[in-house]
């Protein structure tokens, strides 16, 4: 077994391209949260020429709507696991093209157009265990700010400082490979056995 890599954001394209499918990595540096509304808003802002409060280039974009708590004047991440990435399938290829993040962190994987965009623009999909939100929050050392808070706590951009954030599995690499496609082929095979067991065609 290879020793897990530790990478720091913003990610260099060469580092992103070198990541192998199934590999375990940990992240340091700034991580932005962004889910449904951030994707919609960022693309709308860009189209209208309005400023976007953070620079996504080479960043790690985390599909996450955390539970945050204000302690004194500082925000603390209480629970910060991933949300279902497939909800962002329709906007992610465009988001990757326009904003060039180096990594998307989420759960459940993403569809072929996103896999293609990741190959074209040099981005990977890092799977983090869904529901394991306390474990994930432990890798967030501090929170340096929040943007678009008016979208609500789950939908805002939280600017998080990661320290050994993970474990993350490279589930879609920057060379067009996806673990979910590989598992999907096996499921198709197994489906026939299940159908036979259940007396279905």
């Amino acid at each position: 077994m290879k020793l897990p890599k530790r990478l720091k954001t913003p990610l260099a394209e060469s580092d992103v391209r070198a990541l192998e499918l199934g590999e375990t990595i940990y992240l340091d540096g700034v991580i932005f949260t962004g889910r449904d509304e951030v994707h919609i808003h960022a693309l709308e802002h860009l189209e209208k020429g309005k400023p976007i409060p953070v620079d996504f280039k080479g960043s790690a974009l985390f599909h996450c709507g955390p539970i945050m708590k204000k302690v004194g004047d500082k925000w603390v991440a209480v629970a910060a696991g991933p949300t279902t990435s497939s909800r962002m399938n329709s906007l992610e290829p465009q988001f990757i093209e326009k904003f060039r993040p180096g990594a998307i962190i989420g759960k459940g994987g993403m569809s072929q157009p996103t896999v293609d965009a990741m190959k074209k623009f040099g981005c990977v999909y890092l799977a983090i265990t869904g529901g394991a939100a306390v474990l994930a929050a432990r890798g967030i050392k501090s929170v340096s700010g929040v943007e678009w808070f008016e979208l609500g706590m789950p939908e805002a951009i939280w600017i998080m400082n990661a320290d050994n954030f993970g474990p993350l599995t490279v589930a879609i690499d920057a060379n067009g490979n996806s673990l979910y496609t590989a598992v999907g082929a096996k499921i198709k095979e197994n489906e026939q056995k299940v159908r036979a067991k259940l007396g279905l065609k």
Partner: protein
Amino acid sequence: MVSEADIQNAVVELLRKAVVKLPADVEETIRKAYAAETDEVPKMQMKAIVDNIDLAVKMNTPMCQDTGVTIFYVTLPRNCEVDVEKGIVEGVRKATKEVPLRPNAVHPITRKNPGDNVGERMPFINWKVGNKDYIEITVMTKGAGSENMSALAMLTPSQGIKGIKEFALNTVLKAGSNPCPPTIIGMGIGGSADIAMKLAKEALLRPINQRHKDPEIAKLETELLESFNMLGIGPMGLGGKTTMLGLNIEYAFCHTASLPVAINVQCWAGRRATVRIHPDGKTAYPTHEGG
């Protein structure tokens, strides 16, 4: 005499217990699934889940950031005079701040978030009148990732048991990696469109290691669970042995011309908790004894 404040305090504690610690049946099944995985990727996923379960209890923190929308099942004693609804609503407000819960409840069209998990018909309360002297309140805090994979089919009677199995299989395949597998499936068979959906969710209230009392239904539960675990979707859809932790079915008689079947998908974090509030104000949490 039970007061509204008693209800409110019990609901805050109920929500805290629900989001921090899993009921014993779910936790045991997860630990067995972790032990059963052999390949590196699914083993790591299950390890993260088990570590997270332990960490949440140790830190008294919600195990998942998606603390759901609050759906309650209440059984009142016949002579109940206290405003239980108000106690629950205020309890949800307080718990959102104190536990804390993520403010998830938004207006369905404007998507405005009031920030306290309270809005039109939310918290949602299912009412029953029972024959005990205590108020029983059960809550399910269920995330949207799994709820979004739920489905309803209005089958024809001629589609029968095969139609039911086909629909269940297709729903599980379609959900795939999305609902945070290993999942728990609640199925509602019969009734009407709305009753089948209601039963599917109520099926999730039964411990997953407890089969239906009707042997035919119990057999179907076991057959479907064993079959779906042959699919190889695995923890988080990354492949592996455990796709499903449990599958519970509830049924109701239906019209001779219809066969409604509903599926409610639950992630591995099958969070539910029950409190009994006795006439003297004393509380007991049967789903969370000893903690």
